[in-house]
């Protein structure tokens, strides 16, 4: 994902902040900034004559909060989705008998009401933060919201929802009920400093269709009151004081986005199945932990490719074992229970060349992918350790890039086996059956696909490199770029060979190259027997749309013809003809 902070508008004075996109859409409006309220909590002991007053203050706060939530439930009933039931569950939390009893108990033992509430809620929050499942951990936010409302009610503070009609709310955090009250006042968007993509506030924003960006550090201090701002709920960008040109650009984007949303929105929950009932799994290619959330919002069935070398590009060096483990764990936990495939560092490509011993005249044919990793087994082993440690929830797969000869797979497997042994000796918990697969991106590997199918757990086809090596063409060289085409009959025949070999050995095979995200190629890939496509998250729904209008029987007939083509032109003529 592009993380640049500058926009190229020459003399403009506009500023850009970056957060996590939590609810899609574009809003242009005025900032309604709510200052962050962080009261000091008394921790001194109560005098015995004050206990009754504190008990009454707590009971009053429960009553006020319950009434407020009931009011929100009434508003929520007019919204579709799960909004009303989410807020109803908050009523249950506020009135939960066990926590209420525990808080009353604490007050009777001399705790001021506020610190009793904080202590009890924080204890339960800590339990949820310890949950294995990332979605479950975000439920801790629900307890935090209820706690905040109780504290506000005890101090007699009420959030003002009197924002102007064209406003965008900027706050530390927003509770689901506040969000509904703001929506009644026609608020256009939300920006918060904290929150997770699956926190109820984010889910609610998506349900009620209001753009939201979360995790914008210092938003309440960096965004001036009443400033004109743009919220881009697709990219997570916030533009402060946009130029007229930017406003026009985003107004157009908003129109396009609304049309697109209507067309594809309902697709999210639907199955990715052809008209004749063949399921084609749609996975996401990602580069960072935040991408997982974006992909899951688009309804992906797993992560088909994590390009781990992006971590190297970001850091500009090789990460430590701890850094890698934390990064992989974060991704695997966010995706849990969906599967995640980590691809080992594909070093030596154009992006990162650190560690390559000397200049290569022909890097594409040089020390890259698995070749480099076997040249530097220290770097490779450290990555294997980190990935194994992240596999503890059994949703992790590991994939070797740029394999061309069988010996490379053998040597890599030996190193992986040695790493497993070492972790077992240390008593570290990990998935002893973590699947290991290979990328098929050289003609040599494609022609030996039966060997690789037998010796690995899965295969994935990188169509760009496969076409580049098959056609001996550098597609960035304009003198020969016209020869390059991932749909060339030679490439299609190799994909077919790989699928046949995989089927014979009962292995799964996916396509994770650019071709997978090419909507025009979906029918062809289905016809070739591909049952897993891994694409960039923003293309997931478009590809799903294509799968749902494809007939597998017709696709197979089309492929019979395609495989007989003599040239790329012939392939494209058939592909356009079939639509």
């Amino acid at each position, binding site marked *: 994902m592009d993380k640049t902070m500058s926009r190229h508008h020459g003399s403009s004075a506009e500023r850009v902040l970056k957060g996590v996109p939590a609810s899609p859409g574009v809003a242009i409006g005025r900032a309604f900034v709510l200052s962050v309220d962080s009261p000091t909590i008394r921790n001194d002991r109560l005098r015995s004559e004050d206990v009754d007053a504190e008990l009454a203050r707590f009971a009053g706060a429960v009553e006020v909060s319950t009434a407020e939530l009931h009011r929100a439930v009434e508003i929520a009933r007019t919204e579709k989705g*799960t909004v009303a*039931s*989410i807020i*109803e*569950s908050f009523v*249950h*939390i506020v009135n*939960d*008998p*066990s*926590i209420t009893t525990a808080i009353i108990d604490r007050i009777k033992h001399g705790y001021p009401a506020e610190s009793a509430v904080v202590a009890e809620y924080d204890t*339960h929050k800590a*339990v*949820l933060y*310890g*949950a*294995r*499942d990332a*979605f*479950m*951990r975000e*439920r801790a936010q*629900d*307890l935090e919201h209820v706690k905040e409302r109780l504290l506000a009610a005890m101090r007699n503070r009420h959030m003002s929802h009197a924002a102007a009609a064209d406003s965008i709310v900027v706050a530390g955090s927003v509770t689901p009920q506040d969000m509904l009250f703001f929506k009644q006042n026609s608020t256009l968007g939300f920006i918060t400093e904290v929150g997770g993509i699956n926190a*109820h506030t984010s889910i609610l924003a998506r349900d009620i269709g209001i753009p939201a960006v979360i995790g914008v550090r210092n938003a309440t201090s960096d965004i001036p009151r009443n400033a004109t701002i743009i919220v881009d709920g697709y990219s997570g960008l916030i533009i402060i004081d946009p130029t007229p040109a930017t406003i026009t650009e985003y107004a157009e984007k908003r129109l396009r986005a609304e049309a697109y949303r209507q067309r594809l929105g309902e697709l999210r*929950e639907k199955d990715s199945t052809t008209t004749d009932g063949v399921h084609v799994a749609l996975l996401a290619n990602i580069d960072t932990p935040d991408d997982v959330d974006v992909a899951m919002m688009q309804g992906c069935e797993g992560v088909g490719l994590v390009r781990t070398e992006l971590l190297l590009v970001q850091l500009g060096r090789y990460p430590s074992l701890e850094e890698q483990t934390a990064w992989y764990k974060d991704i695997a936990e966010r995706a*849990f*229970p969906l599967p995640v495939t980590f691809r080992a560092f594909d070093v030596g490509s154009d992006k990162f060349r650190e560690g390559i011993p000397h200049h290569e005249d022909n890097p594409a044919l040089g020390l890259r992918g698995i070749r480099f990793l076997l040249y530097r087994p220290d770097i490779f082993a450290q990555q294997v350790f980190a990935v194994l440690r992240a596999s503890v929830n059994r949703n992790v797969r590991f994939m070797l890039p740029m394999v061309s000869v069988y010996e490379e797979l053998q040597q890599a497997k030996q190193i992986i086996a040695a790493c497993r042994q070492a972790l077992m000796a240390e008593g570290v918990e990990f998935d002893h059956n973590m699947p290991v697969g290979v990328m098929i991106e050289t003609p040599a590997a494609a022609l030996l696909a039966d060997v690789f199918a037998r010796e690995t757990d899965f295969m994935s086809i990188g169509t760009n490199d496969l076409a580049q090596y098959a056609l001996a063409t550098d597609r960035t060289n304009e003198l020969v770029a016209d020869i390059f085409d991932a749909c060339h009959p030679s490439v299609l025949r190799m994909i077919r060979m790989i699928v046949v070999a995989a089927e014979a050995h009962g292995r799964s095979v996916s396509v994770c190259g650019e071709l997978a995200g090419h909507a025009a190629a979906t029918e062809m890939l289905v016809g070739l027997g591909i049952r897993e496509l891994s694409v960039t998250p923003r293309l997931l729904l478009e590809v799903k749309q294509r799968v749902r209008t494809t007939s597998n029987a017709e696709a197979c007939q089309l492929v019979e013809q395609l495989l007989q083509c003599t040239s790329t032109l012939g392939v494209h003529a058939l592909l356009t003809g079939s639509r």
Partner: protein
Amino acid sequence: MIETHVHVVNRAGLHTRPAAMLVKIASRFKSEVYLMRDGFSINAKSIIGVMTLAAEQGAPLGLTVIGEDEREAVDAIVQLFASGFDEP
């Protein structure tokens, strides 16, 4: 007393909303209702208790119901888990 097992079948697990549904159903009965996980037992009429089980999809839970309407309570709760709390 009736002791049995239930499984979480919905994808998102026993999070806030399903927890509230469970508490609502359990509270309709006079019987005491307990859920157990990893030797840890909670009162199923407390939403915070249910939430802090942090039961994800596939999690096996023990269900213990004690009281005059225990048969009806077990049936209703088993049915609720099997329905996936109206979630996918």
